[in-house]
């Protein structure tokens, strides 16, 4: 299988990380990805410590391979979950939505490999300075919370700015994306949307169908007005959100309140109209529900074929 220095750094077979998607990336999906040779990641989302401990234990019962936990630094429970990953000595932690500098000493002392998700050169340099082992450079093609730059321009600029390994994310759904990422200077990829339809992913079938039926123009960016940009499928919820967002009379709080509970409505309840279905622009390239291990094999084999040409 495709081998890069990232495989040696993390002790994995394939340089493929599974995105820490809130309400979606649970222990079962993470374990399936890790068993398939990649790095599965559990999302700590906005949940408390008990949920995370339970998920870590479940993941360990399903795989003896390395896995990670994604910590959203704006979570109200961030201090608690940051301590739990250290106590549990989780092999890898990825972070989103801010600078993880405050938690780095405890994580490094616990032997955790820390990989912050960054969307700009300045945040990449700060994370590297704080002691990160690698970075995920996430372009705005991604689903969920995003920056402004595309993967194509972000990855090489971050590769030039830091001396640690860079993992590309955003818009990668097949071997072509993996090969392109390596060409841009990355040593691996993080894939979210394609793993969302993995057989082992427990998200509601309505969510999977939204992704499987998506075309190239099916996603839209919401929240830009208040600097909280998010990419999701353009359904009833997204259209109504945009209406409120660009209503000059609406306040930031009113807009934020409109989004409360929408991820749960999508992922757990499968509410096609009122849920917020986070997905990347590559949703239009995702056509089959298949086992996570098969997805990893296709990503790597496809890239290898292209790189040998």
């Amino acid at each position, binding site marked *: 299988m495709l081998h890069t220095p990232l495989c040696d750094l993390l002790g994995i077979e394939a340089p493929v990380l599974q995105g820490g998607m809130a309400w979606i990336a649970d222990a079962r999906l993470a374990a399936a990805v890790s068993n398939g040779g990649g790095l599965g990641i559990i999302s700590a989302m906005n949940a408390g410590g008990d949920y995370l401990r339970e998920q870590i234990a479940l993941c360990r019962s399903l795989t003896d391979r390395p896995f990670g936990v994604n910590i959203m630094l704006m979570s109200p429970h961030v201090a608690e979950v940051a301590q739990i990953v250290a106590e549990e000595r989780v092999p890898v932690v990825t972070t989103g939505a801010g600078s993880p*500098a*405050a938690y780095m000493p405890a994580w490094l002392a616990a032997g955790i490999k820390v990989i912050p998700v960054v969307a700009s050169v*300045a945040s990449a340099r*700060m994370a590297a300075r704080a002691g990160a082992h690698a970075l995920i450079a996430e372009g705005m093609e991604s689903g969920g919370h995003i920056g*402004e730059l595309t993967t194509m321009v972000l990855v090489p600029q971050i590769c030039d700015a830091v001396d640690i390994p860079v993992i590309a994310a955003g818009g990668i759904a097949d071997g072509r994306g993996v090969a392109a990422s390596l060409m841009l200077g990355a040593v691996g990829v993080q894939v979210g949307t394609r793993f969302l339809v993995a057989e082992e992913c427990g998200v509601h079938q309505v969510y999977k169908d939204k992704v499987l039926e998506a075309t190239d123009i099916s996603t839209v960016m919401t929240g830009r007005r208040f*600097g909280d940009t998010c990419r999701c499928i353009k359904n009833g919820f997204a259209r109504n959100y945009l209406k409120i967002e660009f209503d000059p009379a609406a306040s930031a709080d009113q807009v934020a309140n409109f989004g409360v509970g929408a991820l749960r409505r999508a992922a757990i309840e499968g509410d096609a109209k009122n849920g917020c279905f986070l997905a990347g622009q590559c949703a239009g390239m995702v056509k089959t529900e298949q086992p996570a291990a098969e997805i990893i094999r296709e990503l790597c084999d496809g890239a290898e074929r292209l790189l040998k040409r």
Partner: protein
Amino acid sequence: MVFEKVAAMLADHVDCDVAEIKMETAFADLGIDSLEVAELVMQLEDEFNCELEMSQNIKTVKDICAVIEAKIA
């Protein structure tokens, strides 16, 4: 001194009159998003020759001035 330098840098960054930058001015009011704040913090590190910590709590000119003053005091 810190405020004057920060205000000058911000005014230059967003192309506004330096008089418009007050202690209570929020970055959001200037149309500066969190990615830009990170970049400005790096520039301020060079300006004041110190290492600053990024945090979600840096929202206003006053916040960033306090972080810098704590470092160079």
